């Protein structure tokens, strides 16, 4: 374990990188995933088709490939956000995570919408609410309770998927691991252990937060 203690700064940078990717990824995929879910239940057939097509296309592509598309493709399309390179690749990686995870967020929300009793939506329509308000005022708030557990699994999966950003100029736990192993070839096992423990702890923290939210949603 000495090797971890001696390289706490490298290790800490790795943890920080993973956490930053996860937080931005969560924010982005919650927003975009909800949008996709709305598209998939929308009145317009074209909107539904667009939502379905996106989800089916992206969900079946390995995240590794989506990451490659973002870091190679976006610069070619001349889609850039900042002059600062570190931030630039962080944004590309977050975009890849969001593009991919949103599909699963969308599916979680859609299955949540399905758990809301039909009468709720019918009652909302009966008092004259249009589609947007039926969804935002009546159905989605009630769906939240059923959505939190599957959403939690999706977000935990994304936390682990941030590891793929290591191949895209993003410094996170896996990059830290590779650097440490490269420089301390004789202490491979403690390094692997340390990185594993870091992931287990991060997952535990996220799980705990989700459990808290779930309890809050149930009692609310």
């Amino acid at each position, binding site marked *: 374990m000495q090797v971890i203690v001696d390289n706490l700064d490298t290790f800490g940078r790795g943890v920080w990188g993973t956490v930053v990717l996860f937080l931005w990824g969560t924010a982005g995929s919650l927003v975009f995933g909800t949008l996709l879910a709305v598209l998939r239940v929308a009145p317009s057939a074209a909107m539904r088709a667009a939502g379905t097509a996106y989800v089916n296309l992206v969900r079946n592509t390995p995240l590794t490939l989506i990451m490659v598309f973002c870091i190679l493709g976006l610069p070619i399309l001349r889609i850039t956000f900042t002059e600062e*390179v570190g931030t630039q690749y962080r944004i590309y990686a977050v975009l890849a995570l969001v593009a991919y995870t949103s599909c699963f967020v969308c599916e979680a929300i859609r299955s949540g919408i399905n758990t809301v009793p039909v009468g709720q939506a019918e009652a909302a329509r009966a008092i004259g609410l249009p589609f947007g308000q039926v969804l935002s005022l009546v159905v989605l708030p009630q769906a939240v309770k059923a959505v939190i557990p599957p959403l939690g699994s999706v977000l935990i999966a994304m936390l682990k998927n941030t590891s793929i950003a290591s191949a*895209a100029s993003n410094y996170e736990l896996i*990059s830290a691991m590779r650097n440490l*192993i490269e420089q301390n*070839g004789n202490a491979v096992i403690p390094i692997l252990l340390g990185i594993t423990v870091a992931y287990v702890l991060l997952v535990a923290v996220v799980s705990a937060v989700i459990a808290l939210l779930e309890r809050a949603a149930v009692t609310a």
Partner: protein
Amino acid sequence: MTRNRTTTFAATAFVAALTLGACGQEGSPQTGTGAAGSASGDAAPSYAVASDVALTGSPTFDKIKAAGKVRIGVKADQPGIGLKDAASGEYAGFDIEIAKLMAAKLGLTPDKIEFTETVSANREPFLQQGTVDMVVASYTINDKRKEVVDFAGPYYIAGQDLLVAKDDTSITGVDALAGKKVCSVEGSTPATRIRDEHPEATLVTFDTYSKCVEQLTSGSVDAVTTDDAILRGYAAQQPDALKVVGTPFSEEPYGIGIAKGDTAMRTALNDAIEAAVSDGDWKKAYDFTLGGSGTDPEPPTVDRY
């Protein structure tokens, strides 16, 4: 349901098409200059295969003799050095020629060589576990590695250099990198050197040099840095778009890695390298692969440490 059937059908048809395959023109596409093999377009050089080689006291050689073949770890993704052909799966590059040379001096024809792809992270483990008999994979000799494996050679002295766009005149060397975006592979020695010794440059890291080169051609980074030999391979592929700056700022002696303690094999390989240098085979191998980048380096002197 109908739409689903259609999707299923389309996808099945696609996979079936893949399976049956071969609906295009026969043969393989022309390889880009210097990409997989010949830089000059000449036929591959052949090397005189030694006969009746006897090597006593070398466990590696005994294993090769018993198996009737030699397993050599090489790079598969570095043009000019070691690149696996996408169609045929055959390897080509300077390292591959050196490997064939070494095999020839040990009495083995090229068809008795079994190439295994190695990445930087598994070269030492492959040698320690005996997965391969030797490693010829742009493998820099250094003291830390000498603790776990033995090296014959060097057979080439590379140096860290910069690959830039052909029309770039601002980057003249490592001291002109202030504010420039420099790309390399995460965890590699060249990347660490830039991070530690040239913090004025902005380091971008990927998992392969190919991605770095793609970033360079799309203008997202200003330079790619690693050993000049590797950079030459890429420059030879796209001579109209890329160039190597040509002011190396480190010395990377490439050696042939073998299992630790096999002194008999190390001596035999060192002899083989010296013989190849003196009988002109070394130059044949270089001209055929990296020669396209317009360089003519002196062969190195073997270091029998």
